[in-house]
């Protein structure tokens, strides 16, 4: 829709990413790639969970919409089972549905909460689904049973969670971060207050389970190690800021291969960083809309991100008539995601 010519389109998709069509009618709340194949699932505020099969040949991508299911209310989060056959989705209807999409099955409700489910993850080592909700609980579900295997009380509403077996990190309101060792899930391993001074927006666990990243609404990401002996490696850094405006960091994803990570923010930009050398590897151009969610595919060759309104400027800035939601796929170049040795360092550490 290049109504005004180049500049307009450039802003919508300045990175010339491939757009996945058809785009959802309302904002996208989460994106998840299958852990086995290039199948992308997107959940949206229009109550739908859609999936596309992404195919790639060289530098070009193609997407084919495959199927979708609907919920009664906006869907907020999604998770894939580790064998790549089933997708879980949960949202404002306070339920989580299990959708065996590879086999073409129908979705089944497997979880219930008292308030919208804000985050969920599949725990491969235990074959359980963990769901975190605004009702201040975290529940573990064996999908074959209607009752949760365990209900864990949280200090406040759950906003985000991340699992890298056996590490699980839950971010709640009031800046609490609770770490669980899934080998002993009934006990909180550690509860800390976020190193960031503002509301927690997203967390993601390190691939090597040594710690986690936490992003806040104040354009800042904290790198936190769990082991006290590694506390010196903890640091935070600022990002997603533009002049006087400080945008929220909405999504953090580790590259599955290189150990580097990407951040996506309400400023419409996504950046790639290397936490070990403490550098930004690549700053991508800003889209004209915020990026509320993003995901790498299983081998890190595709980075999917959504450009749609995330409510960061309130309801006043939402115009349903002209709002557009897009899902883009970016092919990260090696220099964008490959870890780099620290510039000027003499290899210390």
């Amino acid at each position, binding site marked *: 829709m290049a109504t005004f010519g180049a500049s307009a389109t450039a802003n919508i998709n300045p990175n010339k990413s491939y757009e996945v069509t058809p785009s959802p009618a309302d904002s996208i709340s989460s994106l998840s790639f299958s852990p086995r194949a290039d199948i992308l699932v997107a959940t949206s*505020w229009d109550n739908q969970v859609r999936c596309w099969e992404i195919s790639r040949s060289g530098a070009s991508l193609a997407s084919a919409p495959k199927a979708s299911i609907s919920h*009664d*209310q*906006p869907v*907020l989060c999604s998770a894939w089972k580790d064998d790549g056959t089933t997708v879980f989705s949960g949202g*404002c209807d306070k339920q989580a549905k299990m959708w065996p999409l590879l086999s073409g099955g129908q979705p089944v409700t497997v979880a219930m909460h008292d308030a*919208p489910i804000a985050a969920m993850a599949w725990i491969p080592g235990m074959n359980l689904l963990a769901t975190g909700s*605004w009702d201040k609980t975290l529940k573990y579900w064996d999908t074959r049973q209607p009752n949760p295997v365990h209900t864990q009380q949280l200090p406040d*509403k759950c906003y985000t969670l991340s699992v890298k077996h*056996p590490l699980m990190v839950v971010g709640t*309101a009031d800046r609490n971060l609770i770490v669980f*060792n899934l080998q002993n899930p009934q006990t909180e*391993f*550690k509860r*800390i*207050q976020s*190193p960031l*001074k*503002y*509301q927690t927006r997203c967390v993601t666990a390190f691939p090597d*389970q040594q710690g986690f990243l936490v992003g806040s*609404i*104040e*354009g800042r990401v904290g790198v936190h190690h769990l*082991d*006290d*002996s*590694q*506390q*010196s*490696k*903890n*640091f*935070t*850094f*600022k990002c997603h*800021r*533009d*002049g006087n*405006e*400080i*945008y*929220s960091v909405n999504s953090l994803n580790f590259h599955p291969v290189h150990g580097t990570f990407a951040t996506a923010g309400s400023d419409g930009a996504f950046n790639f960083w290397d936490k070990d050398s*403490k*550098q*930004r*590897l690549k700053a991508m151009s800003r889209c004209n809309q915020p990026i*509320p969610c993003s995901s790498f595919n299983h081998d890190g060759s595709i980075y999917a991100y959504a450009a749609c309104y*995330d*409510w*960061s*400027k*309130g*309801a006043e800035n939402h115009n349903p008539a002209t709002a557009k939601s897009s899902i883009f796929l970016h092919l990260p170049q090696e220099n964008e995601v490959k870890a780099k040795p*620290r*510039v*000027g*360092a003499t290899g*210390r*550490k």
Partner: protein
Amino acid sequence: MGKKKKRASEKVWCYYCDREFDDEKILVQHQKAKHFKCHVCHKKLSTASGMVIHVLQVHKENVTKVPNAKTGRDSTDIEIYGMQGIPPDVLAAHYGEEEEEPPAKVAKVEIPSAPLGGVVPRPYGMVYPPQQVPGAARPMYYPGPPMRHPAPVWQMPPPRPQQWYPQNPALSVPPAAHLGYRPQPLFPVQNMGMTQPTSAPVVQPSPVTGVTPPGIPSSSPAMPVPQPLFPVVNNSIPSQASPFSAPLPVGGAQQPSHADALGSANAYPPNNSIPGGTNAHSYASGPNTSGPSIGPPPVIANKAPSNQPNEVYLVWDDEAMSMEERRMALPKYKVHDETSQVSSDLPFLKLRRVCFCTSNPFGRLYLYFSIPDPIVSVLRGTTILFSL
């Protein structure tokens, strides 16, 4: 990088808060910034009494305690400057375990040998293995060996009290001692069993020891943290710093103290409280080589805050709820949910338009909205929050 390999004996430390430093100059800067600073106008004086007099004369206020000092060490009568003026008994207590005679530089020297007997003060963390303290005069406590427990702690009392800036908290230590928990992926391993936690393993003073002594490690590794472009923040970094002050009130059982330390160590807040100032300060003075700050690269955000700190604002600044919660309050999404609480205690109605609003003599407010299920009246006593 400036490697100060002085062996422990020459560690200087602050009488007021028991933090250790690599050299006296830094110690003095620390004292000026933390203990001799006027709390009203932030002027740095050169001694505690000078600060008291300044506050009295200029701000007409009486100061009775040295700021940021430990209880028992906060008297303004004692004239301390760097390592000078420290009462002999305190000095001895501090060095009790050190068992080194010649601290060489610095005045205190004389003390060490004498009092030794007593000790084990451990104000700092214990480091020193309980062993035989005095007499030995050999540095041995240092790294490595003492280990009393081979246990892989993984908890490692991290922060080694004090200083840390050059130091590297524990990290560096690893080389020798420690049991490698370092490498261990804390998580999966878990032998320790999460419950264990602090008390037992922790104790490990050894690690601690390891840390303090080596001035060495400091320079070299680890440091990095702070400077690097990335961090900017400082607050988080300190982490280590905090614990130390906390713990140790001396006293017996190292373990307990350690445990406490650990406990606190985990928590971030203490760190934050550690004055960002200090950290920044320390980094600046620390060895750190290559001014990271300068650091080339791409790092982050040079923009923003630095320019006009006052004018910076958060695009999403509602701490009480997340963007999704606010969005859910929109009637369009709420659908049939007026009665249930979506996320907060108060039902939210997003007002599109208030057609009009009247009140009756009894103080009842009527708001007429143009949304479905118009609310005709609102009871007295309820709170209406209008979020715009």
